[in-house]
C-alpha cells in the first residue's frame, strides 16, 4: 500500500465518518438528558429525503439543508411528545420513528417525483461543493505534507468541517456551561434538577431538539454532500452505527470523534477491498461490515472498559405530588 492509497482511504474515512459523527453527537445530547434515542436512523433518513427533494427542486443546497433539518426536528418533536409529554416508552417511540421515516420518504418521494422513491440527481447548486483551503498551491511541492494537506485536510464540503467543529463545541456546551451541567444532571437525577427549580420537561425537550438539529445535518450531508440526491433507505443502518459509536465513546464528545473515525475507516476499507488478505488469512468483507456491531457488543458486555449509560436514561420523569 503506497502513500497515496493510504491518503485516499483516510480521505474517504473522514467523509464517511461525518454523518456518523453528527448522528453520534445528536444521540449524545438526547441520551445525556435521559432520553434514549434509537430513532437516529429515522431522523437522518427523513432529513436526507427532504434535503434532497428541496435541493433538487430549488437548486439551492442551503434551502435543502434547512428543509432537512426541519424534517428531522419534526421527527424529534414526535419523539419528545411521545416520550416526555406522554411518558411513553422511548425505545418503542424510536422504533416507530424509524419505520415512519422509512415508509414516508418512499411514499412522498414516489408521489412527488415518481422515481421509485428516489429524488432527482442533484446538479450544480443543489450539492455542497468541496472547499479548497488556502495554501494548497504553496504546499503542493512539499513531499508527503503537500498531498496530505491537499487530499486529507483540504477539499471537503463545508459540512465535514462543521461536523469536526461540533466536537469541541459539544464538549464546551456539555462541560463548561450551566445548560450543559443541567442537561447532564437531568439524565442522571431529574428529581434533583426539579428540586432546584429547573424544568425537567424543558431541558429534555431542548436536548431532543438539539438531537434533531444534528441528525438533520447528518441526513442533509448524506443526500447533498456524500451523494447527489436521495435514494430509498440511503442511511443503510448508519443511525445504528452512530448509536454503537455513542456507546463505544461512552457518551463523551471527543471519544465520539474517535469512535466514528474508527467506524468510518472500517466502512472505507470494506468499500475499497472486497476481501482483505492479512498474510494468508483472508478477511471477508462481511466481517468488516459486522465489526462495528461486534465491537459494540464487546464494549457493552463490559469486558473492555464498561460502558455505563446515564442513570435516568429511558425513564420518563414523573413529578412528585
Amino acid at each position, binding site marked *: 500500500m503506497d502513500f497515496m492509497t493510504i491518503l485516499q482511504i483516510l480521505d474517504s474515512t473522514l467523509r464517511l465518518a461525518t454523518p456518523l459523527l453528527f448522528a453520534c453527537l445528536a444521540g449524545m445530547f438526547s441520551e445525556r438528558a435521559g432520553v434514549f434515542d434509537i430513532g437516529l436512523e429515522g431522523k437522518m433518513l427523513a432529513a436526507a429525503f427532504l434535503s434532497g427533494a428541496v435541493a433538487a427542486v430549488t437548486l439551492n443546497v442551503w434551502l435543502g439543508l434547512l428543509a432537512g433539518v426541519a424534517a428531522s426536528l419534526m421527527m424529534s418533536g414526535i419523539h419528545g411528545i411521545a416520550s416526555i409529554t406522554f411518558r411513553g416508552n422511548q*425505545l*418503542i417511540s424510536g422504533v416507530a420513528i424509524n419505520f415512519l421515516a422509512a415508509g414516508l420518504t418512499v411514499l412522498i418521494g414516489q408521489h412527488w417525483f415518481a422515481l421509485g422513491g428516489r429524488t432527482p440527481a442533484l446538479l450544480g447548486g443543489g450539492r455542497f461543493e468541496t472547499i479548497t483551503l488556502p495554501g494548497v498551491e504553496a504546499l503542493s511541492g512539499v513531499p508527503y505534507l503537500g498531498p496530505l494537506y491537499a487530499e486529507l485536510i483540504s477539499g471537503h464540503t463545508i459540512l465535514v468541517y462543521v461536523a469536526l467543529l461540533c466536537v469541541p463545541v459539544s464538549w464546551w456546551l456539555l462541560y463548561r456551561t450551566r445548560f450543559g451541567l443541567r442537561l447532564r444532571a437531568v439524565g442522571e437525577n431529574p428529581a434533583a434538577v426539579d428540586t432546584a427549580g429547573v424544568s425537567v420537561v424543558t431541558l429534555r425537550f431542548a436536548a431532543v431538539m438539539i438531537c434533531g438539529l444534528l441528525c438533520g445535518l447528518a441526513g442533509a450531508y448524506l443526500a447533498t454532500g456524500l451523494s447527489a440526491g436521495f435514494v430509498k433507505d440511503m442511511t443503510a443502518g448508519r443511525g445504528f452505527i452512530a448509536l454503537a459509536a455513542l456507546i463505544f465513546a461512552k457518551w463523551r464528545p471527543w471519544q465520539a470523534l474517535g469512535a466514528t473515525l474508527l467506524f468510518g475507516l472500517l466502512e472505507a476499507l470494506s468499500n475499497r477491498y472486497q476481501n482483505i488478505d492479512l498474510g494468508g488469512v483472508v478477511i471477508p468483507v462481511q466481517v468488516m461490515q459486522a465489526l462495528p456491531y461486534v465491537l459494540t457488543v464487546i464494549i457493552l458486555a463490559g469486558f473492555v472498559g464498561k460502558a455505563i449509560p446515564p442513570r435516568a436514561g429511558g425513564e420518563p420523569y414523573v413529578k412528585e405530588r
Partner: protein
Amino acid sequence: MNRMPPWADAVIVPLMSLIIAFLVSGVVILAIGESPVEAMTIMVRGALGSTYGWGHTLYYATNFVFTGLAVAIAFHAGFFNIGGEGQALLGGLGVALVCLFVPWPHWSLALIGAVVAGAAFGAAWAAIPAWLRATRGSHEVITTIMFNFIAASLLVYVLVHVLRPQGSMDPASRRFPPETRLPRLGDMADAFGIPFSKGAPANISLFLAIGACVLVWFIIWRTRLGYQIRALGKKEKAAVYAGISPVRITMYAMLMSGALAGLMAVNSTMGEANRLINGAAEGAGFIGIAVALMGRSHPFGVALAALLFGFLYQGGGELSLETSIPRDLIIVIQALVILFTGALDNLVRWPVQRAFAMLKGNR
C-alpha cells in the same frame, strides 16, 4: 384516577389507539392524492376476496404470529427483544441446514427436524444478548439490534461462500429436496374436497402457529415458569425477594423468545421459498413488535393482530399493483400502529381513565 376496569385497559385503549392509527394512515393516503376508501376496497378485495388472497394473508399472518409471540414473551419478562429479525434469519439457516443435509423420508419428519433446528438456532442467537443482559447488565435493546446486523452479515457470508451452488450468481441455497415440501392449505383442503387456491403459500405451519399461541398462553398463565417470568417483568426486586433467580428466568424468557422468532423460518423458508434466500426474514421480526404491542402481549391478541397485519401485507401488495401507492404504505401504517398503541399509549389511556373516574364520582 388510576382506577380503570381491566377490560377497558385490554380492549378500549388498544382499540381506540388503533382507530387513531388508521385515521392518520387515511390522512397520509389522502395527502398523496389517493382515496382511502378506494385503497381500502382494493386491499380487502386483494387480501380477503379470494382463496388465493386468503392463502397469502394467512401465510403472512403465520410469520407475524411467531415474531409477535417472540416479542410478547420477552415483554412479559420486562425485556424488549428487537432482535426478532436476526433470530428469524438464524432460524432460517437452521431450517435450511436440516432440510439440505438430512435425507428425510417424509415431510412430517422433516417438519419436526425443521422445528427443532429453527427454534434451536433462533434461541442460540438470542442466547448471547440474554446472557449479557442477565449477568453483565448490557441493555438487550442495543445488543439485539447489533445482533440483527451481525446476523445479516453472517447470512450473506454463509450464502455467498458456503451454501450457494457452484456457478450460481444468486446468493441463495439450492432448492430443498421434494421430500421436505410441506403440504399447503390448498393440498389439505383438496383432501376434504374444499376448493382452495393451490398457488397460495399458506401451509401446515399455520397450525403450528396456532399451537404456539396456545402453548405460550399455557406457559405464561398456567405454569410456575410463566408466573416467575411475569413476576420478573413486573418488579425485579420483588421477584428476587420471592426467591426467583433473575439470571435463570431472563435466560428462559429470552431463549423462548428467540426460539419463537426462529420458528418463523419453518413457514417462510421451508413452507414457501423452499430454499434459503438472502434477507429471508423480510422485516417480519420488526412487525412482531407492532403485533405484540397491538395484541397487548396476549397470545389471542397477537393472533388477531397478526391476522390484521397479514391482511395489510397482502392487501398492500395488491394495492401497489393496482394503484400508484407503493408497498411502503404498509411500513407507514406499521409505524403509526407502533406509535399510537405503543409509545403514545397514554394519549388514549389518560382521557379514558379520567372518563372512568368521572363516572365513578357521579355515582
